[in-house]
Every structure is written in C-alpha cells, then in structure tokens.
C-alpha cells in the first residue's frame, strides 16, 4: 500500500477540560471514501477544521501528504453545506469556481482561467448553468458547482462538510454519486461528514464514528452494529437494517432522521 494522503495519529482535541475526541488513529489512502458519522456536538466539524489547519490538536498529529496541515493548503478541498444565496448576489456559477482556482491570490487577477473553469464545470455536469447567478440555482445545482470549486486546486483530500443538508433525497443521491465518481476519476480521498447515513453508505469504504463515549473506525458493517454503537454512546442504541438501508435508533438525531424519511 502507498503512503496515506491523510494520516491522524493519536489525534486529540480538547476545549478546556472537555475532550471532543481523543486518540483518533486514521490512515486514509488516495481514492478512499471515509464517512464521518456522529451526533451533533461530537466534533465532526472540528475534525475537518483540524485537517484544514484552522484548529490545533491538543495532542497527537495530523499529516496531509506527510506534512502538517496549514491554512490555505491547495492539497485540501472543501465542500460546505448548501446555503441560501441571495439571488441578487452578482456571482455566477463560473465565478464561484474561478474563486476556487485563484481566489486566494492577491491582486485583481490577469490570467484567463476560462478553459480551466469550463473543464471543472464540465466534470461535474454544470456546463448548462455556468453563467447563471449562484442564487438562482437549485440546491443540488449549487452543490455540483461547489464540488467543481473544491476540485479547482487538484486536492489530495476532499473534505465534505454536510453537503447533503437541506437537499431532497434524490439530489442527495445525485451529489454523493458525483463525489464518488470524482474520487474514482481524480484519485482524491474523501472525508465525508454527514448525519444522513444512507445516501453515502453504498460508496463508503470506511466509517469513522465519533460518539460521546469514544470513537470507532472500520468498514460500515463492523462499526454500524447495535453492540458497537451502544458501547460508543454509553446508552442503548439499535441498528436496524431494512431494504438495504440502515436506521440508527436511540439517539435523538437519528430517530428524527427516520421520521423525516417516512415522509
């Protein structure tokens, strides 16, 4: 096996006395799809922030391509959750992608990146609406553009921070399928933070489950069991498998999630 593109060794993050997570060991290979699960407040977003170099670990180390993470690294791409954008915001889909190419550089910018931007938009199937203001795109279309933006720096690791939130189920599947296709084509590793297990389950190579009483990582079938999760939560949790889907019952977030899916 080649050297991991992202490696966490005894990674521990604490705010004051409260440990968010501790002793996380994880080695992610290029092209691997790792899904990060856990209830609200379990430090999923903090994990991404640590990989981005925005928060420093309390103990242990993180390495991206063998080096400590630093702000503005072009080796790390970031796809945020979908947000409402004012339709009058003067930014077209292609402008958002262009910002991913050179938005972090000083000066007004004199290079023509049109060919590169067109290529990125084509790769995510967003050519059709390249010149539409971002605020006039649907949630799913916006997320496609976001993925193109994140790929602009040819990242070794793609961090996805709840990119499915507020999308309907069909769009959720489209966006995850696109991310899966992307990692197969580009070989970028994916660290996918979500609380919607099912859309990502078919593509997930490994799960990192962050919970109040500890964490676990491994293939989904190993980690997502009643026994493992009960131990992780320190409270009774049931993992129910039905029609190829996984329902996690017992923590508030996931029971809520089930109700949503019944609709």
């Amino acid at each position: 096996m080649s050297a991991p593109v992202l490696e966490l060794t005894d990674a521990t993050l604490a705010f004051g006395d409260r440990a968010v997570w501790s002793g996380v060991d994880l080695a992610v290979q290029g092209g691997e799809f790792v899904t990060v699960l856990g209830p609200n407040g379990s430090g999923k977003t903090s994990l991404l922030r640590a990989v981005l170099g925005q928060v420093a670990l309390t103990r242990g180390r993180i390495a991206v391509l063998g080096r400590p993470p630093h702000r503005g690294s072009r080796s790390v791409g970031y796809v945020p959750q979908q947000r409402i954008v004012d339709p009058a915001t003067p930014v077209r889909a292609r402008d958002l992608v262009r910002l991913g190419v050179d938005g972090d550089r000083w000066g007004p910018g004199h290079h023509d990146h049109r060919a590169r931007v067109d290529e990125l938009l084509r790769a995510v199937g967003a050519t059709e609406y390249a010149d539409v203001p971002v605020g006039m795109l649907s949630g799913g279309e916006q997320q496609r553009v976001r993925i193109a933006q994140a790929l602009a720096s040819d990242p070794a690791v793609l961090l996805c921070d709840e990119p499915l939130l507020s999308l309907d189920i069909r769009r959720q599947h489209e966006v995850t399928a696109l991310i899966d296709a992307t990692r197969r084509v580009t070989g970028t590793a994916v660290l996918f933070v979500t609380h919607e297990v099912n859309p990502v389950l078919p593509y997930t190579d490994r799960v990192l489950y962050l919970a109040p009483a500890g964490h676990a990582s491994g293939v989904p079938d190993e980690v997502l069991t009643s026994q493992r999760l009960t131990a992780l939560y320190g409270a009774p949790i049931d993992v129910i498998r039905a029609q190829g889907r996984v329902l996690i019952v017992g923590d508030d977030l996931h029971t809520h999630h089930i109700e949503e899916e019944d609709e």
Partner: protein
Amino acid sequence: MILALATDTPWWQRLVDFTNYGELLPLVRNSLIAGALLALVGGLVGVFVMQRDLAFAVHGVSELSFAGAAGALLFSIDVTLGAVLGSLVAALVIGLLGSRARDRNSIIGVLMPFGLGLGVLALALYPGRAANKFGLLTGQIVAVDDARVGAMAVITVIVVGGLLLVWRPLTFASVDPDVAAARGVPTRALSIVFMLLMGLAVAMAVQVVGALLVLSLLITPAAAATRISASPIWVPVLAVVFAEVSAVGGILLALGSSVPISPYITTISFVIYLVCRWVGRRRRQRGWVRRVEPSVVLAEAGAVAS
C-alpha cells in the same frame, strides 16, 4: 441671495438655469474633478458594500465623518483631515466590534446618533458662515479648492490601489466566506482592511454630497449594476459609469441653480437604479441567461471524450 432669487424667479428656473453657463463652468472645475474621483471610488467600493451587506455601516461611518469634519471646522484644522479621522475611527470600531451582522448593526445604531450629535454641537459652536455648515450635511460645489482636490486625489489612489491589491481574496471572502476561510484567505483581516478603505471613500463623499447622502454614490450605482449584471467585470465597470454620470451630471445640472448639488446627484442615481431594476426584472423573469441545452452539453462531452 438665495432669498432674493426666491422672490423674483419661478421655482423651476431655480432648479435648472443655463444662462451664463460658459462663464460659470471654470468656477466648478475643481468640483467636477472631485466629483469624478469620488464616483470612481464610490462605484468600486459600492460593489463590495453590496456583497458584504454594509449599507448601514456606510451610513453610520458617514455620520462620524461628518462629526470629524464639523469638529475640524470648529477647531480651524483641515476639514478633509477631520472627515478622514472621523471616518477611520468609526470604520475601525465597527470593523473590530461588529464581525457578526447583528452586533454590527446595533453598534452602528449606537454610534450614528452620537456622531450626528457631536457634529451638530460643533456646527452650533462654529462662528463661520451657515453655508459651510449645511454643506457638510447636504453637499456643496463651490468650496472645493486646489488643496482639497489634491487631498482627494491622494485618497483616490490609496483606495483604488488598495482595492485592486485585495480584489480577489476580498471577493472570495465577501461572497463565499466559509470556503474562503477554508482556503486560507485571511477573512478577518480583509474585513478590517475593507472597512478602512470604505471609511476613506466616505470621507471623500461627505465633502461632495454631504453626510446624509453618501449612500447615493456608495450604494445606489453598485446596487443598480448588480440588478442588470452578475459578471465580475461588468458590475464594477457599470457601477463606476453610473456613479460618474450621477456625480458629474449632477454637478453640471446644479451649476446654474441656487439649489444644493446633492438633489441632482441623488435623483440621477435613483433614476438609473429604477431603470436597472426594471431591466433586471425582465431579465430575471426570462431566467437571466438562456441555459445551454442539455443535448448540446452531451454532444460537447462526447466530442471531448472522442
């Protein structure tokens, strides 16, 4: 003099009067230069004011700038210097304390009346002519001397140069703050830098259109431009053109009249905005741009693949 005119000429002739126009024009040469410089700065700054939702902050800073200028009159120091100092202090306070929109608005709401009150106090104590006093609130054209034009040119160079330097990361931080931060763009520092550049622009505007009407050159042109375009090149270009038409056109129209300059500038920029809004609405109703047919996209992808 104003009163005398009021009694023997009809009101419409006091609004627009082109008699002796050729003789008057050289008198306002400095004002025209000042207006043109201000429009350039206002159009460009306005683009980011819109993107960052800072309209209220502009208004707040302009009241503090007015207080600074009024204080300068009272203490017989340079008015431009006073306006700049007032602006920068306000911009810095708002920038440092108000990183979140809700905090920012309440801080501005607190600062603004205080600044206005200070300015009114300084003007009340100022023994000079009343025309100078009102000029700071509602605008003036005759009082721009060579020294002041020079100061405004220096400010223009600083603001335009500064904006060009931070243009891309500032755009990134303004329209897409989360991803910009993830990509290492110093969003907090850029926010302060922009507040200071905006403060300088306001200090210029206070001296031409007056504190109450600064928004007409710092918001309206950019707001109009974003109605009809979403292009990162055309929005600033159009904003500057609209601001130039309003400022220079307003001064030329005001020249022969006995009315202050600002109603002309504000009216022109407002009319431009209304037209752009109407055009933009029609465009929006048609879906802004024609989306490329999916079949064309597929054919293109096929061509690329083969």
